[in-house]
């Protein structure tokens, strides 16, 4: 990776409020044209990180650079880091096209140039004919796209998104995910996407940053994080993982993904545990079965419909959960 490829760097950035540390010693590099998702439970510092990048919060220490330039003292309105807000924050007293034109207007783009540029973006996002609508006359998905158009109209190098899909219906989320990834690929700009939703992050991002308690727990491609979580926090947060304490070769914890567990009524060769069936949950093509392990741990196994029928488990019944040696991933630390 050369210097030119790097768009954003965080160097030892931390943010402290009076008696609360939101972000501690954050080091992160974001490349040009990359789709990065910052993911973590609420209060992990992901939104603070994004807000520092936008200049809405000032770091208490450390250095943030964008395009090689130190941004610590650059006020928000002099940065080109448009943000798509969770609440969208569309201006209710302006109509659709006036909202989209806002950023251009603030940058002194003349009147005759603003409108065509705004119209291009409205058309691109499928909002042609909605220019004169009031914001409260739009559906949730349409508002979302107005917010995107408003942020992208200045053609920034980077777009920041703060849980933009969390207020939408499930079916719209999937559709907007498609819109966002397509847009990011076409524009070739950097997307920094903050979310608490694993499915959103894993579906869209090139690289996922997992944060917990103000620190980065793991950075990697979605697949790497899913298959090889670094520690217990990541393994638990990512979900669909089974964590077995002290079963590693060196006595550490191991992780076996739910889709690599096989369930049977009889004891099997190799690694396995006995667990009591709790319940099942349909997730599209497969079924997740939940079990309670010998030490009361929550275990899950992904099975097909046929397998479930063959097993026909009743709550409380004991089953053997087994896995192949290559399915085991050992966690760092004891």
């Amino acid at each position, binding site marked *: 990776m050369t210097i030119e490829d790097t768009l954003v760097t965080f160097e030892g950035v931390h943010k402290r409020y009076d008696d609360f540390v939101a972000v501690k010693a954050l080091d992160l590099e974001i490349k040009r044209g990359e789709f990065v998702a910052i993911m973590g439970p609420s209060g992990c510092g992901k939104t603070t990180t994004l807000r520092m990048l936008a*200049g809405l919060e000032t770091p208490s220490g450390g250095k943030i650079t964008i395009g090689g330039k130190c941004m610590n003292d650059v006020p928000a309105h002099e940065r080109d880091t448009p943000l798509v807000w969770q609440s969208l924050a569309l201006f209710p007293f302006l109509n659709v096209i006036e909202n989209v034109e806002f950023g251009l207007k603030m940058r002194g783009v003349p009147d005759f140039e603003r409108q065509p540029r705004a119209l291009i973006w409205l058309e691109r996002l499928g909002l042609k004919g909605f220019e004169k609508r009031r914001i409260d006359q739009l559906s949730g998905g349409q508002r979302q796209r107005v917010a995107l158009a408003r942020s992208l109209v200045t053609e920034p190098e980077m777009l920041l998104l703060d849980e933009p899909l969390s207020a939408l219906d499930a079916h719209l989320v999937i559709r907007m995910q498609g819109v966002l990834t397509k847009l990011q690929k076409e524009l070739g700009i950097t997307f920094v996407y903050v979310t608490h939703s694993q499915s959103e992050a894993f579906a869209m991002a090139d690289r996922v940053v997992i944060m917990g308690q103000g620190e980065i727990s793991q950075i990697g491609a979605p697949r790497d994080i899913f298959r090889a979580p670094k520690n217990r926090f990541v393994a638990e947060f990512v979900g669909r993982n089974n964590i077995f304490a002290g079963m590693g070769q060196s006595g550490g914890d191991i992780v076996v993904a739910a889709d690599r567990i096989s369930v049977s009524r009889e004891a099997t060769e190799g690694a396995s545990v006995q667990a009591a069936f709790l319940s099942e949950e349909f997730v599209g093509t497969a079924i997740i079965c939940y079990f309670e392990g010998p030490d009361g741990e929550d275990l899950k196994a992904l099975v097909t419909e046929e397998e479930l029928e063959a097993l026909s488990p009743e709550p409380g019944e004991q089953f053997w959960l087994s896995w192949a040696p290559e399915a085991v991933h050992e966690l760092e630390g004891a």
Partner: protein
Amino acid sequence: MKTRFSVYPYVWRVPLLIWQGLFFIGPLALMVAMSFWLVKNYRMEPDFVFKNWDKMMSRGYFWDAYWITLWRASLAALLATLIAFPASYTLAFKVSDTVRRWAVFFLIVPFFTSYLVRAYAWQVLLAESGPINAILGYLGLGPFTMLNTGIGAMVGYMTLVLPLVVILQTFSLAAIDRNLIEAAWNLGASARATLFKVIIPSARVGLIIGAVFAFILSYGDFVSPFYLGGSKPPTMSILIIDTTKSGQQWPRAAVVAIMMIVTLFTVAFVAVGAAYGRRK
């Protein structure tokens, strides 16, 4: 489907209608009727003559009073809005919730004392030999005649309306979604642009309602123009006092009052339309 007739809702509406009829429609109708009555030997007699309207509408002093009142109330609304805004802005955005709550409480305190008493206090302060002129004297200025002038009246109007206008503005500014303000910065708006393009449009309703209250209160007030403004030129309210005192001319006072009500209604209607109306 036939809806069964029920007296129940009508029964509950009756007290409201009686109240409205007794205390609003009734007196208003009486006043309108009275404006057509005649005064003979200092006594009113029901009649239907246009003499009172004729007399008032054709007099220069009526129209002088009309325009001066309209002008002063408009100026008071504008001044109150401009003076209150920095205070409201500070209370809404620059202080903690606790400080804001206390500030709003202290803004209500002035209403505990009679407005008349507060106007009298200004009489002392604004006098030619009063403390304000004394301080200005130290600085080599003045003395200025402030009492019994338009300035005196305006000081009185501000005493009356400022606390209310600050409260109304503070609430409407504090209710603005902070994300909108941050979104404006994020899209390249400077502090100034954010104020004019986002904060003021967002608080438009509250700002206009504040100005309307300032207008209405100043328009009908007689304490300030009387005790601090020297009642010259007379405002509409002073005209009512003068008319009733001189020869029991209640019908002519009714004419003045009706003109005031019509004006207030028009102004309030236009202002509320501007506050809530759709943009062009």
